[in-house]
Structures are given as C-alpha cells and as structure tokens.
C-alpha cells in the first residue's frame, strides 16, 4: 500500500508528523522536498497521527511537501557485489558505483537464541602486541575502544582492518569527519584491503539522524555473510555519536531523559547492536570492535558506562597507546592457553612488573630516592613502552612473546621475576648480557615485590 500525503502537520527537530492510516510501525517513507528526496521512518503512531524521523533532517521541509509511504521497513541490499563498495547511512551508494537494489534484507531482525550460541574458542590475530599478547581478541567478541577525543583511534581501527585475520570487514562510520572518512578509504585502498571491505559511511556533515541506521545496516549485512560461513569483523566509529543521535530523537519526542539527557533505554539500544556479535555453530561469526569516545576522559559518562556493562571488556586508548590497565579482554582466557605455553605467564608477569614501574615512576616524580630495584624498573618501563605498547609495533604474537623475554632479560635476573622455573629454563634468553648494575648493593629491594605470587597468576581476567 503506497500512500501519498501532502500535508505536514508539524516539524519539530528532525521529527515531522502527518495524518495517515494503514501505516505500519517502523515503516519507511520518502519525502520529496525542493532540495531532493529523503527517507524517513515511522517512530510513533497515535490514531491517525504518524510521527516520522527524517533522515536528512528537517531543514527546508515545507508543510506542503509530499510524504510517500513505502510499505516496508528499512531494508538493505545483500550480495557479494557489496565488497569494496561505499554506502551512506541510508544504504545508498556513496561512491560512484551503481545502486544495488536486489535481494533486500530486513535490518535489526530477530535475535539469536542463547542456547544456539557456543563458547568462543578462536583467536583473531591483529599483530598488535597490546592486543594479541595482553588482551587477545576472540571471535564473536564485542569490544569497545574507549578513547579520549584526539587519540589515534581511527588509525588503530584502520590497522586492525588491514591486518586482522578475518574473511571480511564491515566498517561503519557514524558522524565521522570527512578527512577521517578519506583516511579510511585511502589507507585500505593502499593496503589492498579494500576488496574485502564494505563501508557504511555517515560523516559529520550528513544529517545526524542518518547515522542512527549505520550500526543496524552493518550488522544486518554482517549477519547474512556470517550465516554464509564468513568470519566478519564489524568496526564501528564512533558509537558515542550514535548515542548522541538517540538522545536528540528522544528529546524531540519529549521522552523523559534519565541521565545527562540520554534516554532511559540507552542500555537496551546499545545492547541490541552489540549483542549481534555471535559465533554461529557450523557457520561464520560476527566480531564487533567499536570506538566509544569518552567526553572528558570520564569512564562514568553514560555512554562508556552503559557500553562497559554490555561488552566483553574494553581497550582503553590513552596517550597514544593501549593502556595496560583498564584494558581488558574478558574472553582472552578462552584462547590464550592454546597459543604458546608462555603466553599467560608473559601476559601476567609483564603487566605486574609494569604496574610496579608506574609506582616507581610516581615516586621518582615526587622526588624520592631511587634504589637499584627502582632503576631496573625504570629501564624496564621504557623498554616495555617502546617495544610493546607503541602502536607502530607490528609483529606476530610469537615474535612479541620472544621480545617480552628479551626485555625481561635486559632488565632483570630470572629470580627477580615471578616466572615458574620451567618457563625460565625454556624461554629466558641464554647469552644475554644481564644488566647487573646495582644488583649486589641492592639485594634487599630486589626481593620479589608484592603481587607476584602464584595466587594471583590465574585470577587475571575474572570479570
């Protein structure tokens, strides 16, 4: 049933109302204005009054503009031809390629039955040591990248897109700056990863509401590919913009805000998207990495806070690198016992030493005297930051583990670390010239410090 209405009753924010009957909830409509066509979606029905959110925004809409109901909810095309293509927030081509209109699939479809899920067991390698070694990414994981604005989160995403061992990538941009959009396109093109990528790009100059559809479009397409046996990695940037768009609509609809203006259903809205991450038994999988910028580096802000309760850990990007503290992959325990047998020990041991380095660094900044042990820690901290944390380090997991042992051997003697003897026998570099400075005089303070006993070894990653 296609109806045309030409009397717009009200325009408030990006929401318009018209009179209509036989309209179904969440149905799409098309609005023709002097500036062109825009899609709109039904978000409320009250007797014969229909409220629509206009994707292109309400600017310039005339009360006499034509509203045509399309008789179907939002759908998106699905075909292998989408690979390498760029679409906008309404699913229309953004590159100069032809529009794809075949094989339309519904977005935000039914959810996966929990009993059909399996415990994820496969690791996704990214060649970034801070991820592979310390916070392994696991197939079907949903992991946000918490970041302060200005951090190189898009660079990080682009690198993961190029290097992650998956079958294909779907990249969704929400409120992306134009230069960042170009950056993604160019980087992936140069890196040769374009042909396994599908873009849904909504830029900051596009109408806000259009960005609301991006996660659903990405995930609907991803789900179809996953059911077809593909391991799909969905990258979203930035989900805070998505939440802000939700906020805008809910305020326009005069909903009572719950926390800092965000709607009460923010948690459910975010969860509906993130929970699409899944590993299908005997088919493919969806893994989600999503940037969430934290206004004012505040992790208790409603968006990162709600996200943290939904996702399986988080990567915390700060000062240009992935923070060892605060970052957590809740699923790493499922995979890091099957990589190499020193993986867990390096993961725990190096982080504990780095924690001590941070304490020492604080003491140094406050002007306390540095003992021999402190000096070793300072050296260790520097090396760790250069060779592990730096985002430009690009090495395989095994190489990174070897590097870890090398760093340890450059700074400590084996007894000063908490590693089990058999691991030290096997992995500690043999002909390394040990740093021995200050070792004799400082026997006292080189006693294995707090937190290095066995009891804490395996407790890492409890949630």
């Amino acid at each position, binding site marked *: 049933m296609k109806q045309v209405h030409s009397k717009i009753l009200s325009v408030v924010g990006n929401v318009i109302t018209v009179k209509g009957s036989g309209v179904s*909830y969440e149905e799409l409509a098309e609005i023709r204005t002097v500036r062109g066509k825009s899609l709109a979606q039904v*978000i409320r*029905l009250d007797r014969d009054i229909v409220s629509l959110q206009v994707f292109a925004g309400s600017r310039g809409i005339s009360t006499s503009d034509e509203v045509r109901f399309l008789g179907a909810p939002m759908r998106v095309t699905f075909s292998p031809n989408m690979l390498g293509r760029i679409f906008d927030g309404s699913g229309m081509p953004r590159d100069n390629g032809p529009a794809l209109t075949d094989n339309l699939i519904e977005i935000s479809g039914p959810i996966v039955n929990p009993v059909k*899920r399996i415990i994820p067991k496969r690791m996704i390698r990214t060649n970034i040591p801070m991820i592979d070694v310390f916070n392994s990414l696991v197939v079907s994981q949903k992991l946000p990248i918490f970041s302060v604005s200005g951090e190189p989160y898009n660079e990080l995403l682009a690198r993961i897109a190029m290097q992650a061992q998956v079958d294909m990538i779907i990249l969704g941009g929400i409120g992306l700056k134009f230069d960042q959009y170009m950056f993604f396109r160019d980087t992936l093109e140069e890196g040769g990863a374009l042909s396994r990528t599908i873009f849904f790009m909504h830029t900051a100059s596009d109408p806000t509401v259009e960005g609301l559809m991006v996660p659903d479009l990405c995930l609907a397409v991803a789900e179809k590919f996953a059911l077809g046996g593909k391991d799909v990695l969905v990258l979203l940037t930035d989900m805070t913009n998505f939440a802000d768009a939700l906020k805008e609509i809910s305020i326009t609809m005069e909903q009572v805000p*719950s926390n800092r203006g965000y709607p009460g259903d923010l*948690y459910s809205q975010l969860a509906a998207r993130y929970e699409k991450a899944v590993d299908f038994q005997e088919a493919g999988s969806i893994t989600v990495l999503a940037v969430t910028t934290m206004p004012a580096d505040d992790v208790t802000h409603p968006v990162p806070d709600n996200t943290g309760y939904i996702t399986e850990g988080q990567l915390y990007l700060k000062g240009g690198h992935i923070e060892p503290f605060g970052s957590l992959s809740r699923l790493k325990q499922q995979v890091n016992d099957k990589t190499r047998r020193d993986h867990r020990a390096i993961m725990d041991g190096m982080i504990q030493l780095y924690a001590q380095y941070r304490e020492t660094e604080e003491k140094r900044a406050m002007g306390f005297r540095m003992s021999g042990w402190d000096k070793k820690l300072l050296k260790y901290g520097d090396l760790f930051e250069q060779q592990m944390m730096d985002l430009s380090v690009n090495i395989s997991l095994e190489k990174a583990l070897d590097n870890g042992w090398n760093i340890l051997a450059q700074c400590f003697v084996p007894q000063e670390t908490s590693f089990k003897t058999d691991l030290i026998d096997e992995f500690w570099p043999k002909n390394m010239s040990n740093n021995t400075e200050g070792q004799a005089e400082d026997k006292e303070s080189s006693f294995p410090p707090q937190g290095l006993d066995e009891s804490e070894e*395996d407790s890492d990653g*409890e949630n």
Partner: protein
Amino acid sequence: MNKNYGEIISIYGNMITVEFFANIVQNEVGYVLIGDQRLKAEVIKIKGNTAYMQVFESTKGLKIGDKVEFSGQMLSVQLGPGILSQIYDGLQNPLPELASEYGFFLPRGVHLEALDYQKKWHFTPLVKVNSSKLIAGSPLGYVREGLFKHYIMVPFNFYGDYSVEEIASAGDFCVNDIIAKIRDEKEVVKELSMVFQWPIKIPIKAYRQKLSPKDALVTKIRIIDTFFPIVAGGTYCIPGPFGAGKTVLQQITSRYAQVDIVIIAACGERAGEVVETLREFPKIKDSRSGKTLMERTIIICNTSSMPVAAREASVYTAATLGEYYRQMGLSVLLLADSTSRWAQAMREVSGRLEEIPGEEAYPAYLESRIAEFYERSGVVELGDGEKGSLTIGGTVSPAGGNFDEPVTQATLKVVGAFHGLSRDRANARRFPSIDPLESWSRYKSFVPAELIAKAKKVLFKGNEVYQMMKVVGEEGTSMEDFCLYLKSEFLDSVYLQQNAFDKVDAATDLSRQEKMLVKVIEVLDTSFSFEKKEEARRFFYEIRQLFIDCNYKEIDSQDFKNQEQAINELINKGAVAKCDSPKG
C-alpha cells in the same frame, strides 16, 4: 464465551494503547494478531476504555486498528514436573525446544509449552479417597523429578477445604492427565492434573506461616560465610561497577552454594555469560548429589537484546518458580543478575506511560517494587510442618559504579546483607572483590562475633595505616603501625581472597573456614618484633606464602599437615610475646 477483542489506537516503541469494548483485567495478557503471528502483551494501565499494554516482542510492522485478543488470564507460568534443568526465556518459553524447532534465531510471536506434555512421570499417591481437610498446597502425591520428590499439590488458588473424591493409583502419567478429583465444601467436584497456572506477579502464600530466617546458607566463599554471611530464606545484594566480578561471583555461588535448587535469572545481561553456564553446568558434578549441576538448576534467560518487557517479567517468573519449589520443602536460591536491568525495564515502561518521573527518571514506585520482589524470599512452615526456603541474591549494576543511585539505595533498604564490590580491588586482582570495609550483613556468622570483630579491626586499622603511608612514606611509619598494615594485608590475601580457578581453593567448607580463621587470628594476635621493615615484610611474605599453599591443599592430605607444621614453626620463630589483641 465470546472472545474479547480490542483495537490498537497508538504505538510507541513496545507500548501500545488499545481500545476495548468488554471488561478487562489489570495485568491481563492479550495477543496482538498480525498475520498468523500472535504477539504476547500485558495490560499495565487502564483508563476509560483504553488499555495501555506492553508488548513482549518487537512492534515492527504493527498498524493502527490491528486486533488484540484478550485472554482473561493474568501473566502466568505453568507449574508442574519438568521445570528443573530447563532453560526458559522470561515468559517461560523453553529455549532448547525453540532452538530445535526454529534454529539460530528467536522468531517473533511463537510460544511453546513450558512443560513436556508427552513425557510420562511415575505418580505415587499420598492421599486416599475421602481424605479430607485438604487445602491449597496440600500434597496429593508425588513424582520423582531428578533428585527430588516433586509433590503434586492442590493448586494454590483453591480456597477452602477439600476432600478427595478420586485419586489415581500409582502409575505413569503425562502432566495433564487427570490424577485426582477433589470436592469442595459446596460439593463441587474439580478435576486436577499435575500442572496448573499461577500469575507471576502474585506471591504464593499456601503455607502456614513465615518464619524468621536463621540457618546459614553456606556459599563456601570465605569472605561471605565468615564475614558477611547469608541465611536460607534471607536476601542479599551485590552492587558493583562493570568488570568487578559480579557475574563470576554469582556463577561461583550457583556452583557451590549448599541448597537444593538454584534458579539463575539472567536478566538483561550478556548472552555469552549464560552460554558459559548452560554449556558447563551439564558437565560439572555436584559434590552433594553426585549428579550434574544442571539437575538442580533452572535458568531464566532474558539477555540484554531480548525484548525489554519480557525482561521485566523474568524476575517475577524466577521468583514464582522459586516459591513453587519452596512449597515442596526444598531450599531454593534465586540469583538475579542484574536487578538494575530489571529496574531499567520498569523505567522504560514508565517513560512510555508518561508518568511523572522520580530520581534519574526511575518511576516513583521503584522502591516498593524492589521491596516487594525481595519480600518473596523467606523461610516458611508448610501445612505438614516441613520447612522450605527461598533465598534471593540480586546483583546491582550502578551507573558509573556509584552506589549513591536509586536502585542500589532502594535495594540496600530491604536486603539483609550487602556485598559491595570495589573496582580498586578488582583492578588489584583481589578476588572476590567484595570490599571488606564497606560491606555488611545483618545475619549471624557461624564463628564467634569476637573473632570477627578482631579481624575487622585489623582490617580497618591496617587501612588507616596504609592511607597514612601513602602520604608519609614507609620511612615515616612506626614499626608497630607497619606490622599492623602487614597483618591486614596478610589477612586479606590468605583469607579474604580466594582463587575461583583452583579446584581446592574455590570452595571452602565451614569446618575448614573455622580452622583456618583460628590460625589466621593467631598470627594477628601474635606480637612480632623486627629490626628493619624489610625484615618484617619478608617475614609476612613467607607466612603468607605458607598459608596460600595451604589453601591449595586438600584438608586431610599429608601435604596440608606438613604445611600446618611449617606455619606453626614460623609463628613461634617470629613471635616475641602473645597478646590478646593487636595494639592500635
């Protein structure tokens, strides 16, 4: 009787308003008819001839004027044999059956029977023809459901006295076969099968009286059993920020708690966490029964992406099932994870009803709803003098980890124990991350109160010293204070912390807890003298290591005894004099 229909007049999110023409009931279930789908919905507000209904599924594609069929029934669950070890959604749809019928996804508008109507159960009668004075909840017979005698009772909504007209003799029956006919005071005869319905929002009260809860509910988690105990029939809550280990704590509790039945209500949390439970539990042996854990478990699974209205219903479904098994004289533990998501579901509904909001937009009735829910717990004396209990433990996920928010505060008012999780402890990998300085319990611990007070004093004083030390450094701290600090750290790491991944350490029974606590207190009571701080630290590291090794050993093993010996020697070596309580 003619069916009662209504028509949709507005749709907003999962809230619809429906114009009706006959009489309807508050909390009545209606079905929205769309094509051949029937979407379940519940009446939550009535005004004039308009009913406000929340739909338990996506409202996509509904139209103004669509028909709604009212059922005349309140939102109910089916009670009968076959509930144990089942996995239900919030409305008691069995998820494994949905999966085998519909595959990967949960389609909209399908409902399956909660119980298997084909399965035969062996029924043994407990009453004879003409037995009289039966009331609601009186057993008529029983079937064996896994480990338990599942009593077939007079339905709880039967008021007055009944006598038995007919009763089936022992034999195999399906749940809806007629097994008895009973006659009420007005000589009306009613037929009974093994299954009946009960509205989830109404507490089951077919018992003689409610008693005050006293008996400890052993969780085998040291910090809980010793310091912040819970009791069978009591209530407790676990608030904590994300990543602090709420869910792991609940999982451990669900494994080791000494109760008959555990009901896990996964309410608005990650699907992945439920998956771990439902894949692992069928493989883990329960030490009490020798059967798998699944046999004593019911999972109500309404994860975060499942419809929000069903999430609101899921905790009531769980509570009703808990009350049902309590009526059989069993002890039931209900773990709700997380009650904040349930409260948020209420908030979403309230917002759509355009009610005047309270704090943080939660509805004004938030507190009373939370109180009502926890009040469904309790120890009850049944008609035959037996006792049953329902214990409720709920996690709370406060926004930003700040306990000063409506859900946490409303919960704290009504629960008997508070296990507050701290992000600092979680970051320091001190698990379980229950904050010993902030948490409390109104219930009595199994160890003498003096010991607890003594240990807590050390923790408080130790923390004070630690705070001070942050300012003045180790150099500026007296040896006495420093020892106190080391003692509190020692207590923390050998007793409060527990390794959930170690076979032995994961579960400590009460006799072992008592034994270890006495030993730990002995260390706290002993005065040690050290020349240098480094010496003191080294001594405490050594003794800590001995205790931790001890924690990993089976209590009746030779290793354990050797370790004990070593501890005694070390204490004697370091001790100068024993005093009754630590100074400070």
